């Protein structure tokens, strides 16, 4: 058997067994809309932890982090910087979000805006922006699947057909299993990925340099500038680091799928305990950087930095091991994409389509529409993946510049009674316009600062100023559902019933 056959066969076997675990999980539970989206609100500490970890440790971690360590150097460390800090932010905001979710039966991020600000229009806008921002995130997973199959086939299978096959699998997987299936499949991939990351991270520098210490000593001697900021870039210095870390740690739980995942917890206290222990799970992350730094010396001149981890694994180990690593990576991409698709499709069906086009749809019809939407979103992301060549990390930063703009509306909505619907809407539009303008005109980073963060500052300021000059209509989550409904003066509130 040729090496590519061995590697590809093993990848297929891992993907198949991971999917099987997901498919089997659904037979234990009746699948209605609530079960499909928030897993019945009954997950315990261990399962929530695996679900959260499964969502955060994506293709981005596996290929993107090593890819940036290889191609950019020092600036890649921003990923290690935001990792613990996003959990710090979650410690303060997730428990009250969960509490509001339980009190008002919230299922999506847009539901949160609907109930807090009493406006179906704002909720529909939030849903729309959320779905659009998910597309670059989904694109990361498709691109990653494509890279894995491309390297594992030793270049025999081209990038595009590889991505198409991967995403057909993801679509089928999501439609059949829902959140609980994804949670179980993510257990399989967490174990595999952890094993692969730790082994590769220690073994690769050992093979070429005799250990991690000697590898860094060699790199520090040959390319000392690569290890600090701005590394191999011109404009990613300390100002960029601080603003990117802030944007990412504020924005992380603003992703529609992370936001909705907090509703699956058993209690607010479960989420707080998670926030305390989660950074420890990230302890395997530095090993991805080690592999990327190692590749700088071992494999100079790769056209695409995101290929560095897979290529170094292919050159250093037998084909079956490349299959194992590729399989873990492929399953990771599938689980992550599944969760994103689930959140995106539910958002679209429940908060965009139903309130605007068909107010009298039943939950069952919404669930069916959500499943149709899975196919549409998958194809959209596939289209962009085929037609773009951005690095995995750059894609993620684009998405963050968008979703982080929800942060003022969420945080002020939780902790301030004075913030108004008009304030949040104008702030959101201002932030999104500035981020979009700076990025489309190629001005990110702008004067050495992350463009998304600049937009977020304007967003906060505008939200504050407009709120100051507009009257408060809804007083916050402390009120009863009844008084919020009354304040909405006849708007559709079926989603909160």
């Amino acid at each position: 058997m040729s090496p590519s056959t061995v590697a590809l066969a093993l990848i297929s076997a891992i993907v198949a067994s991971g999917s099987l675990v997901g498919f089997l999980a659904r037979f234990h539970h009746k699948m209605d809309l609530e079960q499909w989206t928030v897993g019945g609100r009954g997950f315990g500490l261990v399962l929530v932890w695996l679900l959260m970890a499964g969502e955060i440790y994506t293709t981005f971690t596996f290929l993107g982090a090593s890819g940036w360590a290889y191609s950019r150097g020092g600036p890649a460390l921003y990923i290690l910087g935001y990792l613990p800090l996003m959990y710090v932010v979650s410690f303060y905001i997730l428990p009250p979000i969960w509490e509001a979710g339980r009190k008002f039966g919230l299922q999506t991020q847009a539901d949160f805006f609907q109930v807090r600000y009493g406006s179906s229009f704002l909720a529909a806008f939030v849903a729309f922006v959320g779905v659009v921002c998910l597309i670059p995130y989904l694109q990361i997973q498709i691109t990653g699947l494509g890279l894995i199959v491309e390297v594992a086939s030793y270049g025999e299978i081209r990038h595009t057909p590889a991505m198409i096959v991967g995403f057909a699998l993801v679509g089928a997987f999501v439609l059949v299993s829902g959140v609980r299936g994804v949670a179980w499949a993510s257990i399989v991939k967490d174990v595999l990925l952890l094993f692969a990351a730790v082994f590769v991270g220690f073994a690769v520098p050992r093979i070429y340099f005799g250990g991690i210490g000697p590898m860094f000593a060699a790199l520090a001697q040959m390319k000392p500038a690569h290890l600090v900021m701005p590394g191999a870039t011109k404009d990613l210095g300390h100002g960029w680091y601080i603003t990117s870390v802030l944007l990412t740690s504020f924005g992380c739980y603003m992703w529609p799928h992370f936001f909705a995942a907090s509703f699956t917890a058993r209690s607010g206290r479960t989420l707080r305990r998670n926030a305390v222990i989660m950074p420890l799970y990230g302890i395997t992350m530095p090993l991805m950087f080690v592999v990327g730094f190692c590749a700088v010396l071992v494999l100079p001149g790769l056209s695409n930095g995101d290929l560095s981890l897979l290529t170094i694994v292919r050159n250093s180990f037998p084909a079956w091991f490349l299959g194992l690593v590729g399989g873990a990576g492929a399953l990771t991409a599938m689980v992550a994409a599944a969760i994103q698709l689930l959140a995106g499709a539910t958002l679209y069906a429940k908060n965009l389509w139903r309130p605007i086009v068909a107010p009298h749809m039943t939950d069952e019809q919404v669930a069916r529409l959500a499943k149709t939407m899975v196919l549409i979103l998958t194809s959209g992301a596939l289209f962009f993946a085929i037609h773009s060549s951005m690095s995995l990390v750059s894609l993620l930063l684009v998405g963050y510049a968008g979703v982080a703009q929800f942060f003022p509306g969420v945080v002020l909505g939780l902790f301030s009674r004075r913030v108004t619907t008009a304030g949040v809407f104008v702030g959101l539009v201002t932030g999104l316009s500035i981020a979009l303008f700076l990025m489309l005109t190629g001005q990110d980073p702008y004067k050495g600062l992350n463009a998304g963060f600049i937009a977020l500052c304007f967003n906060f300021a505008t939200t504050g100023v407009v709120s100051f000059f507009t009257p408060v209509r809804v007083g916050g989550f402390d009120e009863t559902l009844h008084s919020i409904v009354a304040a909405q003066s006849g708007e559709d509130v079926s989603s909160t019933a």
Partner: protein
Amino acid sequence: MKRPSLGSVLLGLIPFAAACFSISLWDRVYPMVFGLPFNFFWLIAWLLLTPLCMWAAYRLEVPRESKGSRAGGGAR
């Protein structure tokens, strides 16, 4: 919603100060620690130290939570 206490917010600011705002103090290769460049070592250390800060914040928040659910009654 009830806001977090000042004490727990201050504890949460420690990791932000250490792993984000103070970057120009620790973004350097030397001295290497355990064979790692200093900036790399520093960030790994804060992966381990952040849970300690947040555990302390958790100890501060949990008594406030259960007090709230008993409608403000009872001793600590």
